[in-house]
């Protein structure tokens, strides 16, 4: 164990995490109330005129769960099914869970990446400015904004946005990802409608994360400002702007890139509140509905996807960091 390189250690931990997540979702499947497979089998029997055995077999495939075999075999079959891409069928919607995920994922990625892009760029810019001009009025403003937004959970802010801008002023729609009268596809009307619907969720996401990015950048930039090479740059008489951007900014932003990669992974799980409030049909929205309706197959599918996203994001963060900072070695 002691001889493992950081990369091997990381892979090892990731594999164990995947195993834990799989076992958790398997346990979740076993918690399903009543004998759902039996129920589905009887339904199929009536609908398609099959024998009970045939219908039962189809039902187990559809749910990716077979309670009739011994426990270890159940587990093996469950994993086997997952490896074939079978996440089961949603108990509530009666369509494959993978179909729901594929439909929901783009919306979450759209809103989350837009929100991250905005909050990261603006936050880094503000943090840099605050650190650069410690005596200016911006520095206390940034600190105050960050501590105030820490006190307001993002779903409360989302609720305020909803009431003010969607219910009262009617500037933005109440729910959905696009208007029902536009045709989803590669056309301007659809894009405009999608952006229109994304505004409030994006603002809600951005509102809270912005302060965090600004504070991290401020702290990071301040530590870089104390470095010798900045003093050398100053002594060389380089332009202020060049020192700020190429010397301080570039070095200060490096540790934040890691957090950015991790934040991308975390967005899927954090979207539950905001997407439910805005009725935005992304991963978080379906997670909320799945739990409310006790749709066990959908819960396990969404949970696995979210966990996987985080693991991949953590990996990406490490790799990116080792590429950006030559002192860190993965091998």
């Amino acid at each position: 164990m002691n001889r493992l390189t950081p990369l091997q250690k990381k892979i090892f931990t990731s594999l164990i995490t995947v195993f834990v997540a799989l076992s958790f979702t398997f346990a979740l499947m076993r918690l399903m109330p009543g004998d759902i497979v039996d129920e589905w089998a009887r339904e199929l029997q009536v609908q398609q005129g099959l024998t009970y055995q045939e219908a039962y077999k189809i039902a187990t495939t559809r749910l990716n769960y077979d309670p009739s075999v011994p426990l270890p075999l159940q587990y093996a079959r469950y994993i086997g099914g997952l490896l074939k891409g079978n996440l089961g069928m949603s108990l509530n919607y009666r369509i494959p869970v993978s179909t729901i995920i594929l439909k929901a994922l783009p919306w979450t990625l759209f809103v989350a990446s837009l929100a991250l892009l905005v909050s990261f760029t603006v936050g880094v810019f503000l943090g840099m400015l605050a650190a650069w001009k410690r005596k200016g009025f911006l520095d206390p403003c940034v600190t105050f904004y960050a501590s105030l937004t820490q006190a307001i959970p993002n779903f409360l802010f989302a609720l305020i946005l909803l009431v003010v801008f969607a219910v009262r002023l009617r500037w933005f729609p109440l729910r959905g990802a696009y208007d029902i009268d536009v045709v989803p596809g590669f056309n301007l009307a659809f894009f405009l409608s999608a952006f229109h619907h994304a505004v409030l969720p994006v603002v809600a996401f951005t509102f809270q994360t912005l302060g965090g990015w600004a504070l991290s950048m401020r702290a990071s930039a301040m530590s870089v400002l104390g470095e010798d090479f900045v003093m050398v740059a100053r002594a060389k008489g380089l332009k202020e702007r060049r020192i700020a951007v190429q010397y301080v900014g570039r070095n200060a932003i490096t540790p934040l890139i890691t957090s950015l990669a991790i934040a991308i992974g975390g967005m899927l799980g954090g979207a539950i509140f905001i997407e439910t409030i805005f009725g935005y049909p992304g991963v978080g929205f379906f997670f909320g509905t799945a739990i409310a309706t006790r749709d066990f197959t959908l819960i396990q599918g969404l949970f696995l996807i979210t966990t996987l996203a985080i693991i991949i994001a953590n990996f990406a963060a490490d790799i990116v960091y080792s590429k950006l900072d030559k002192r860190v070695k993965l091998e």
Partner: protein
Amino acid sequence: MIMPRNTGKRLLESFTIIKHNRRAFFGLCVLVFFILMATAGPVVIPLDMSQDFLMRFQGPSWAHILGTDFAGRDIFQQLVHGSTDVLTIAFATAFFGSFIAVLVGLSAGLVGGKFDMLMMRIIDIFLTVPNFPIMIIFASIFRINDPISFALVLAAWSWPGLARALRAQVLSLKHKEFVEVSRVMAMPYRHIMFKEALPGLMPYLMINFIDMARGAITASVGIMLLGLVPLSVTNWGMMLNFATFQTGAIYVPSALSYLLSPMLAIILFQYGLICFASGVEEIFDPRLRS
């Protein structure tokens, strides 16, 4: 670290420092206000949940200082009675969470070796698994209906970060003289852990305790806002759930108070905790005092 024996004197000293720090004093006042509201409030202010639909969604008035809800019931009364649950969940989560974190973090740091490695892997897994979804899954699948069980579920996913930080602190303390002396004197781990290492980590722990309480408020109110764990109807999260999803209060202009009251209560409490935490930080870190 020199520890004065007289606790009363120490408390007084802390209070004086808090009093001179405006932010921290504000935080303390907010905290005391909400604790009074949660403990004495329900005794002093009776809760009348009888329905009167003629009085629904009234604005603030002398009879109902915060107005009425969808069934004509007083919002202020509900806010007061709901605060007990909210505060219980917040502090119970912070207590359980810190307890697990101290146990895991300190033992991993002090024992070291294989045990440490195992604990670190477990912490990694807990930190990687998406915690909001899993908290919600646990809380709703096990049909939680009392604040303490809810707090246990939240605590089960709140401790890893603190545990890891405590372990790191212990590792740095480990080679300080006082711990080495205790080791040489063959004192039991229990003694080193609770009598030698823990007091030095106390301030750090207190700030994290407050952070954890804040996290628990956010998580519990959020989960209840979505209606996934139905606790008592007066709970702030449930009030918001009723206002948003069940009674259409967000569409009624005169019902603004029904939506705003629990919201402002949450924000004020959170902000008070943040201010108080910064005060605690200054008390224990003299370098921050101005």
